[in-house]
């Protein structure tokens, strides 16, 4: 039976997943990574997705990021049923709606910090170097614009990744273990940036294993075996 969770933050649902199932074929038969998940996320909400390995949290984030399609169920993001979009429309939708922050940063190694941000602009619409420089300055890296990723620390690379995710002002930020590869000092810096973004009204969906990171979110969703096993609010105890 589907688990239905209602958010208390805001009234307008930015993301609505209903009866979401994702199966993968394997030699042993179909593997169900997500099983009848129903979830609503409001605009401006910060949701942490937790769970053990293989619980389906990455699959959930991939579907939210329009990088994967569910086997069954519907995904509505910002009022759009993404299942109805063609491949080209989905590419466009992803560029305009989603910003990704990766655990491994995924910066293009032969482009400078500034160019990595310009690249996101290029695939979205057109490049604006001043705007890209401002985005870099906003994460405290205004003086590292011409540095290659190999010349930046892990924390700095993750901040470039955050600036890149924000440059096109997407309504949703998807962060996959954003502090997973960082030391304590850099972890604190990235946490602070995420707090700032949340205060500015960004909707953040974050996969994490770290309870401390999860505690920053408005809500924590725990997945087990592809189902939502529990949901906690920052100010409430577990509902299930």
């Amino acid at each position: 039976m589907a688990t239905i969770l209602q958010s208390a933050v805001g009234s307008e649902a930015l993301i609505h997943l209903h009866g979401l199932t994702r199966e993968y074929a394997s030699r042993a038969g179909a593997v169900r990574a997500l099983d009848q998940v129903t979830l609503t996320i409001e605009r401006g909400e910060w949701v942490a997705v937790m769970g053990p390995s293989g619980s389906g949290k990455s699959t959930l984030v991939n579907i939210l990021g329009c990088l994967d399609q569910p086997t069954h169920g519907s995904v509505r993001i910002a009022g759009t049923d993404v299942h109805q979009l063609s491949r080209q429309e989905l590419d466009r939708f992803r560029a305009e709606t989603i910003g990704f922050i990766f655990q491994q940063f995924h910066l293009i190694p032969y482009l400078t910090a500034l160019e990595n941000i310009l690249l996101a602009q290029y695939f979205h619409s057109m490049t604006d170097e001043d705007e890209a420089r401002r985005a870099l300055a906003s994460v405290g890296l205004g003086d590292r614009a011409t540095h290659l990723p190999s010349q930046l620390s892990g924390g700095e690379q993750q901040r470039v990744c955050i600036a890149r995710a924000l440059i096109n002002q997407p309504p949703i930020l998807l962060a996959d273990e954003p502090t997973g590869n960082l030391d304590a000092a850099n972890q604190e810096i990235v946490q602070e940036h995420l707090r700032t973004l949340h205060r500015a009204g960004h909707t953040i969906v974050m996969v994490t294993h770290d309870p401390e990171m999860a505690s920053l979110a408005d809500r924590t969703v725990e997945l087990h075996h592809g189902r939502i096993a529990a949901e906690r609010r920052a100010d409430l105890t577990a509902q299930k």
Partner: protein
Amino acid sequence: MFFRLLLESLFRQRRRKLLAATAILLGTATVTAMLAIGTSVGDKLNHELSSYGANILVTPKADTLDVVVGGVSIRPATAGSYLRESDLTKLKGIFWRNNILNLSPELPLHATLTQAQPSQPATVPALGLWFHHTLHYGTESYAMGAPAMHRWWRLQGAWPADAALDQAAIGSKLAAQMHIAPGDSVALNGEPVRITGIVSSGDATDRTLLLPLALAQKITGQPDAVRRVEVQALTKPEDALARRNPDSLSPALHDRWYCSPYANSIAYQIQEALPNAQAEPIRRITQGEGTILQRISGLMWLVALAALLAASFAVAASMTTAILERKQEIGLMRAMGASQFSVASLFFAETALLSLLSGALGYLLGSLLAARVGWEIFHSTIAFNPVLLPAALGMALLVSIAGGAPSVLRTLGMQPAAVLREDG
């Protein structure tokens, strides 16, 4: 941004790109060389085969007409018909006149040869020829004659002057038999003649007295007469159209046949210019040339195809590795909203740029190779053929795109999410 990405990306993975570029370069160089040789081998072979002498023989038409009465041919064995020497200038007025390289009219006869010192006169075969005759047509003049037609003839001494009625050359065996040396004086039908040279040919000419055509005409009492004419023409190797009967062709095909320098069509035009003449290609040369050329062309195409295939596989192997190494980059671009088309454009533009650079170098290398091969085999260089440049670039593009496309498309088909989650 696109060009920045393109240039930065082009100079990454240098070892793999260099490998792919080398494969394209060698492939296009081989194909360029093969095409350059293949397209000029016909001309080269023609020039080469022209050293083997005439490829068209012109005789009086009356010789070929059998007069049969009651089932018995009554045409005289000696068939005394002649062509007119003065008509030969007309052959320089035909459509393919510039392809007629040499004419060698002949007038055979028998003459009585007596050495200056008292000896028995002998009746010997003689042949009236042009040696270094100048043929005038309009304002142009052409040097023609038997020595240029039979380049394998070896001469000791000098050729007789064409206008001289008291000079002759003699075949080596006849000279040895009659103990005649260059500079000796002999009597020919009672008239004094000086032997200017001894000719060695390896055929019946060795037993023949070679006279200026004018002298032969004087001895036979047939001024302006020629018994047959050997024609050396630059021809196109025989193909299926060349072998067709021109009278059975449609007007369009007939025009094509007529305007192609086949030995057949040149012979046809010679007959038009000399209505009393029968012109026939000497088939052993024209057919052999066609066969040789066909085999050489087949070999060239086979080598070119093998080179292209090898290059294509090498590019495919190199590009597959190069692209798979960058699949996270592709996944990232896709996650940022890049369409499959824009990512594919980037990789194909990079491949195209690499292949065009390598293809241009391959063209240069191939042309140099062709020139070298031309020099080694035909002793004349094969000129750079600019028409082959777009062909070489096109092939380089085709090979690299065909080699790189499967890996690009396969990577584009992968789920960006799956690619991005792999450890870089």
